[in-house]
């Protein structure tokens, strides 16, 4: 492009016979190219600052913690005052169960709310108000959710400082993320698909169920999983509602030793980020290595979840036919 322009300019320039004009032109081009290069360099540096920092941190974490991550006992020992015997059994089980509650609570609520807002809700001031609030809620600091949950779940509803409370708190926190993602992916479906279905006499629910949800499911799942990945590393709200630091037992297994199906929901618990924080604040360096191990586990879990989201989206897109 630049080359042809240059040629044309050159023709005009030579036809006029002004050598200096040509020179000026060339200098201008050189200058603009220099700017182009300069901006590319700035952009590259800007990108790398983030990436390199992350990579360096991750490598540092791996160097400190890889020995623990490779040990089986690390995953099946309870925390201990002796670093050599300490493990993350109670905290990873806690994290997994809290995430399960979060998923079960947040996914249906979020998707239903988004479908309603996008497909059913009349456009009036109330809907507008709700929409503005949902978008704003996504930016509310997580500690605020923790305080809300402390009042609502722990004291008013009397759920105690339990897995259920933590799961619901984190569910509330990621609800806006899911709603926004679901609405985005519903909005990206071409209008003519809706119109075609309506033209065939489908009800709104049939349109949603048979056409919109299947098509949007990739985007919805991405939203849900990104929300969950945010929740997994969250410490502030979980500390506020009273997750514990030392816990050397697992929640009761359903239907064993006289436990009911849902008793585990009310069990005291701890989660990975809290275990990590606790070990980091110990003076002994051996505990810091353990903390690095937990850090690796959390990062790998997040990466796996995000990878799973990408894979799912890809699979669903491929399968999609009308």
């Amino acid at each position, binding site marked *: 492009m630049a080359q042809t322009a240059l040629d044309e300019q050159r023709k005009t320039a030579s036809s006029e016979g002004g050598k200096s004009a040509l020179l000026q032109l060339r200098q201008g081009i050189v200058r603009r190219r220099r700017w182009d290069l300069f901006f590319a360099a700035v952009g590259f540096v800007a990108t790398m600052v983030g990436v390199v920092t992350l990579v360096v941190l991750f490598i540092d974490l791996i160097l400190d913690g890889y020995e623990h991550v490779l040990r089986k006992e690390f995953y099946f020992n309870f925390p201990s005052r002796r670093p050599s015997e300490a493990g993350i059994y109670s905290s990873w089980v806690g994290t997994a169960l809290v995430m399960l509650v979060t998923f079960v609570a947040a996914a249906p609520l979020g998707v239903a709310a988004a479908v*309603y807002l996008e497909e059913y809700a009349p456009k009036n001031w109330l809907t507008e108000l709700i929409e503005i609030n949902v978008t704003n809620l996504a930016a509310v600091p997580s500690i605020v959710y923790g305080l809300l949950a402390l009042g609502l779940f722990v004291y008013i509803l009397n759920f105690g400082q339990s897995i259920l409370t933590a799961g619901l708190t984190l569910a509330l926190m990621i609800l806006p993320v899911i709603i926004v993602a679901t609405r985005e992916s519903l909005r990206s479906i071409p209008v003519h698909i809706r119109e075609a279905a309506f033209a065939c006499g489908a009800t709104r629910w049939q349109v949603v169920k048979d056409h919109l949800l299947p098509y949007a499911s990739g985007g919805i799942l991405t939203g849900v999983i990104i929300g969950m990945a945010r929740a997994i590393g969250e410490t502030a709200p979980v500390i506020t509602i009273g997750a514990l630091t030392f816990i*050397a037992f697992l929640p009761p297994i359903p239907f064993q030793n006289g436990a009911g199906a849902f008793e585990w929901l009310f069990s005291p618990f701890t989660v990975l980020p809290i275990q990590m924080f606790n070990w980091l604040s110990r*003076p002994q360096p051996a505990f810091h290595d353990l903390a690095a191990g937990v850090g690796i586990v959390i990062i790998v879990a997040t990466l796996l979840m995000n990878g799973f989201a990408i894979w799912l989206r890809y699979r669903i897109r491929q399968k999609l036919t009308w």
Partner: protein
Amino acid sequence: MSVQKTALAASLVAATLQASVAFGAEKIIRIDGSSTVFPVTEAVAEEFQKAKRGEIKVTVGISGTGGGFKKFCRGETDISNASRPILEAEMKACAEGGIKYIELPVAFDALTVVVNPKNDWANEMTVAELKKMWEPDAQGKITNWNQVSPRFPDRPLKLAGPGADSGTFDYFTEAVVGKAKSSRGDYLASEDDNVLVQFVSADVGALGYFGMAYYLENKNRLKAVKIKKDEASPAIEPSVETVNKGVYVPLSRPIFIYVNADAAEKRPEVREFVEFYLKNGGKLAKEVGYVDLPATAYELAMKNFKARKLGTAFGGKPEVGVTVEELLKREGKL
């Protein structure tokens, strides 16, 4: 959305009621409070659960001494870890919540200020001198020993201490500067005590502080500074004995657990746990880097516990320079 939430909440409330019935049957001892006491209680909880083969469950949280008392006085926990005695406001809160408690000292938390063995001028220092060195205003200004006191020589002052995340840092700043976490920032900060030992033992003008247990292990490379509470007080050398006697102040303090008296009365597992604590706490405290109480203090504490002696010996105000035995013999105040 709100309709759905209400429905969910309602169904969950029903589930709670069901579950809480079964929940009461389970033997869980709930402990929360100070992060300083945490390592000792954690060690005791670990051993206790091993000894009981998981029959009794113990949970230990960290929400700070104040946060712990809040939960304790609402009756949410059975035992509260405290790195200072209960304060007046907290006593009131407990009285309002109808919570009676038994105060039991379980170990000592002590710090040592160390200098290089070749340092022959700072054998003893007053707390005021330490404050002059460490307060935030000293940053960038107090860089020579002779600025701290005219009796010190003209030598560059090099400081080392734990980083801001550590409880030792909180405690030292509180005891010396007067406000927790209030310190100058231009010193060698490391959470690894080895780095601090290395630093102080390599530089004649260096001064550092850390947990006393660590000094005791490195006595050959370091010199401990004797601490004078004020000009008039005698200089006290840090040692297990002076800490035990409660005279090494303000850099040592007893740490406590507060036991809910009702829970101790009605629940055998809580009783068992506290007795296990008082029997094995000293040994375990030493293992995690604290100074244990004298044996007689544990015996006295056990006696007090068995007699269910209620209340605090402090009357709501922290106090320094009292021996633990004296405290345990005092009348309790709720």
